[in-house]
């Protein structure tokens, strides 16, 4: 006996994502899902953003890591509330985990919630968390082949932050090729060059972030 189903496999995750999206919309919160490989500088970029925008945007962070609360502590040190999810091996965050984590943050006192996903350019891509904006971070030392190797992640980004741009002169990294490869996968995505260490280009990112926040309000 054959049973035709045509059922969405990640249906449960999509249901939870829908509930999260409803919550963000009702609370006037902009939610950002930040995806990158390990070591791209997501946490440093976030810590600097929190400090530089302290008087303009109230940011809360959900940290996803396989183990340790190192990142959540860095974010708290930068002045923002943070909740750490330890996935104990899982390579991505799920919408249900976010739904639970939101109870641990003072959402009524926030403008923006950033979810720093588990460092991984493959698995998080398929899991909608209910976010309003998806940010992919690519750092210069990782190499300019990443958009071609991980098209799934880059194709769904609203903005790609090319981080550690201050290292451009020290490593082989063809910025034009990266931009071309991203454009092809994702013609509407924004590409911004930043350095969370030197501050280069960070104003462009803040501007983009504030505009998105205004649109979501």
């Amino acid at each position: 006996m054959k049973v035709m189903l045509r059922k969405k496999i990640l249906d449960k995750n999509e249901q939870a994502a829908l509930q999260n999206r409803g919550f963000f919309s009702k609370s006037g919160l902009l939610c950002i899902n930040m995806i990158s490989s390990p070591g791209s500088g997501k946490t440093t970029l976030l810590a600097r953003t929190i400090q530089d925008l302290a008087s303009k945007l109230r940011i809360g962070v959900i940290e996803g890591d396989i183990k340790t609360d190192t990142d959540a502590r860095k974010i708290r040190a930068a002045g923002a509330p943070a909740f750490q999810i330890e996935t104990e091996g899982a390579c991505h965050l799920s919408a249900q985990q976010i739904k639970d984590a939101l109870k641990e943050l003072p959402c009524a006192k926030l403008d923006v919630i950033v979810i720093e996903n588990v460092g991984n350019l493959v698995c998080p891509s398929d899991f909608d968390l209910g976010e309003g904006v998806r940010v992919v971070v690519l750092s210069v030392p990782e190499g300019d082949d990443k958009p071609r190797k991980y098209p799934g992640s880059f194709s769904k980004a609203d903005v790609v932050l090319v981080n550690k741009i201050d290292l451009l002169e020290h490593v082989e990294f063809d910025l034009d090729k990266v931009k071309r490869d991203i454009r092809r996968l994702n013609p509407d995505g924004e590409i911004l060059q930043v350095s969370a260490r030197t501050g280069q280009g960070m104003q462009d990112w803040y501007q983009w972030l504030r505009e998105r926040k205004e649109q979501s309000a």
Partner: protein
Amino acid sequence: MHESAVAQSVLESILAEAEKHNARPKSARISCGQFNALNDEAMQVAFEAAAMDTPCQGMKLAIDHKPLRTLCKSCGQSFDYDIYSGVCTGCGGENIVFEADAPLLLEEIELEQDTPNESDAAKKDPRQE
């Protein structure tokens, strides 16, 4: 390895269907798009591991990769896009637009009705007694 999350979800759906129909799962077919980056081998291993010690143990899982239809704006050719190559198969151009990628779906399940009644009936066949 997102395959393990996919496998767990597929397994739960199959078990629910099997219970609903009071039948044994025999095989299933899932389908995915190109950007899902589902690896066949990893998917099989993940499903086998998830199915262990359940009624799904040993069942067959088929994985159908749906092509991504793409149009080249330079030469007008319509083709199946290779997301890792990124260029038009006709002119090598990069000015392309692709259609929506296929979703991750559990397409169908094949179930086998438990047949204790038939075998009971066979035993009771007077010609065999």
